[in-house]
């Protein structure tokens, strides 16, 4: 009798399902989200998959508004047939307006709820959100995959940092370093969203300053967190003729000398030449000239970028971390962004050519 009762109970479970069961077929995958607005008035754009028949997947975007991003998601959920599941988000886009508020507070739900995905990519977009959520002809892929791919490729080329939601929180909560997020804008020529550089944060919020692709690459190099493939191009002038020279960053060393009111930064970079029509790289003299030229140019550019960072009161490079750890007198002067912006920072780049390709 006991056994029969037990079997009955077990079987009834089979019919009823369990308390915390969330059947996958009753959830909707949301791979791309865009947020616009400010605290109290959030607007969310959720691109979700819908499976129409046995094997076709299509993507649609629903909008929702609410006092928090979670509220916006629930609002949008009511407009879809299944509930929007935030566990497989590939990328989150934010307007410039949205990042003027503390990201950690905005994304509280993402950090708090265990189902959310923390390794989704983050990016800031220029202007309105709506056009970014639409599929354009030139994209080739569906928008979620498109953003995932272009952000990954740009990070691979050191143009932008590889930042996800979790790392963004780490940077924001760390006083010694500031966040820089990928910056996207719609190309004037093709009308397709593309990576334009990075948006600089100061303290916890967007500083309003944006760096272009060239400058943001230098920021990644300065951080010593470059992607796999970092390239610089300059025009080299010799006897009145201009030759383009393209170099790829090989390995490099950084050396920071932090003093009371100034920082001397030296980067010893090793470069591989990938394109140099003037040739004759087998001559020592030619290489020496080129090295000097590159050192000069890079130093100039690096210093220019540093100036822009100081102007934006943004320290994505992390001088603050070192200052906090080893130079308390500098760190305790005041708020770090202020201190940083007033420091005298001199960057020096020493370029050495290591490889010249398969022709001289």
């Amino acid at each position, binding site marked *: 009798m006991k056994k029969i009762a037990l079997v009955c109970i*077990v079987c009834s*479970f*089979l019919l009823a*399902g*369990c308390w*915390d*069961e*969330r*059947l*996958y*077929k009753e*959830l909707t*995958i949301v*791979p791309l989200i865009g947020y616009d607005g400010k605290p109290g008035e959030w607007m969310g754009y959720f691109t979700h*998959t819908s*499976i129409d028949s*046995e*094997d076709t*997947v299509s993507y649609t975007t629903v909008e929702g508004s609410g006092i928090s991003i979670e509220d916006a998601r629930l609002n949008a959920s009511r407009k879809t047939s299944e509930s929007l*599941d935030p*566990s*497989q988000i*590939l990328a989150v886009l934010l307007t410039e307006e949205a990042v003027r508020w503390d990201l950690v507070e905005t994304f509280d739900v993402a950090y708090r709820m265990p*189902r959310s*995905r923390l390794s989704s990519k983050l990016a800031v977009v220029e202007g309105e959100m709506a056009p970014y959520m639409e599929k354009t002809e030139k994209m080739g892929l569906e928008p*979620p995959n498109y953003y995932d791919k272009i952000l990954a490729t740009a990070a691979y080329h050191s143009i932008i940092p590889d930042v996800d939601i979790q790392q963004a929180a780490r940077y924001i909560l760390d006083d010694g370093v500031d966040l820089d997020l990928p910056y996207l804008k719609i190309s004037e020529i093709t009308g397709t969203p593309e990576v334009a550089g990075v948006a600089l944060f100061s303290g916890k919020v967007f500083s309003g300053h944006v760096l272009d692709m060239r400058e943001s690459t230098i920021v990644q190099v300065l951080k010593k967190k470059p992607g796999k493939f970092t390239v610089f191009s300059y025009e080299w002038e010799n006897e009145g003729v201009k030759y383009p020279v393209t170099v790829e960053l090989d390995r490099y060393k950084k050396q920071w000398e932090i003093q009371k009111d100034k920082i001397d930064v030296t980067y010893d970079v090793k470069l591989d030449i990938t394109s140099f029509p003037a040739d004759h790289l087998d001559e020592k003299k030619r290489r020496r000239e080129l090295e000097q030229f590159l050192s000069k140019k890079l130093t100039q550019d690096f210093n220019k970028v540093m100036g822009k960072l100081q102007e934006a009161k943004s320290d994505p490079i992390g001088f603050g971390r070192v200052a906090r750890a080893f130079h308390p007198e500098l760190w305790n002067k005041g708020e770090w962004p202020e201190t940083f912006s007033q420091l005298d920072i001199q960057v020096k780049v020493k370029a050495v050519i290591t490889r010249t390709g398969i022709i001289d």
Partner: protein
Amino acid sequence: MEEVKSNDSLILYIQNLFHDSADLVVHEVSWKNEISIVCFYNTMTDSADVNRQIEILRQRSIDDFPKWEGTAASSVGAFSESQLIENVTHGFVAVFFPSTNLLMTITIPTFEVRATAEPDNELVIRGSHEGFVESIDKNISLIRKHLSIPDLVVKDLRIGKETNTKVTYVYIESIADKEVIDIVKTRLENIDTPKVYSIGQIEDYLEDTVWSPFPQLLTTERPDRVVANILEGKVAVFMDQSPSALLGPVNFFSFYQTPDDFNGRVFVGSFFRILRLFSFLIAIFLPSFYIAVVGFHSEILPYELGVKVKTAIQFIPYRPIIEAMIVELFIEVIREATIRLPAPIGPTIGIVGGLVIGDAIVNAGLVSNLMVVIVAMTAISSFVVPSVEMNTTIRLIRFPFMLAATFFGFLGIAIGTLILFIHMMNRSSLNQPYLSPIVPFDPSRFKEVFFRTPYYKNNQQQKTFTFRAGKRKDGEGT
């Protein structure tokens, strides 16, 4: 027996004793100075052989050999009715001398015995291709052929009042554990059942716990496997008319080792041994893992995979557990059916069942194709284990895991694993720990479990559950 009885009435009496069986031969044979009655079943003994033996014996008696009755094939003893019955039923020839009241036994049984072909369910690629047959003597001789040592001890006893079945246990005196032999002996002697006709019955009596899905004795039809195991100090139990031998005490990991391991190279053997243990995990956990993911933890799927899984299951009307049960039970049915089918049709039905119905079931939208992939992988993995009993066991225990995953997702699987582990630790084989070397914990022996170690050392089964109390001292096993 009274002497007043004439030989004719004696013959009648004996015929009555065997209920006038048609194959019983009872007739008079005259000797030098007396007359005897010969009695045997002509179905079990060849009549011409009997004549030849009797002729030899008669010649010896005429030549007046002292103790002429005793030859390699014959012996003599006092007559008793039970002795007569035993001799005849065992296929011996009984020769009764009424005048001296002696009973001579001539042991020349001839049975039809199948050739020692390789057992179908335990194929190996390299190594011996002999297999046991349905004759206990032949089987023992196969073992003796491998081990020409006097230390190999063979003991028999007869069990079952009605069937009077011969059961033999074999071990190597110097290596085997006395305690284990005593257990085997007492358990066999205590078998109190009128009928014994299958080795499975004996297994039930010998096992420590019948109420467990895990086999606690290793069944094999391969002489080389028996030899390898008795050299490790195990005991082999044979039953007449059964080609399988039971080996014990065994631990769980011995079910995952095959004689082939030691025929291959060290690396190859180790690789496949690890692969087999890995497939054990797949066979148990894969369906429940799928159920847990689809039902509870879909967030662990990466986006690309997630979209694929979702498209596969979006239009399936059933809950994952029902879906899984449909395919799992279907596969079990195909398997069970193909065993019963005659060899020429078997594979055909397998293909029809597996491919045609499998494809149709997916197209009909009853189950997702992902489920079919998972169940097929599970089924294949469960067949990797080189032991039929263990194979059925692991196919059975994945069902509770599927249920656990339906109720609690990964937590259910975790709890189930713990319970399974505790259950296995509680088991013992002939009072020896089943999960040795994990219980008792002995890290130094782990490598033997996972790798085919280069030297074939004879390792005794751990003796007791309590650490050290019975640990083998080095050099003892020779």
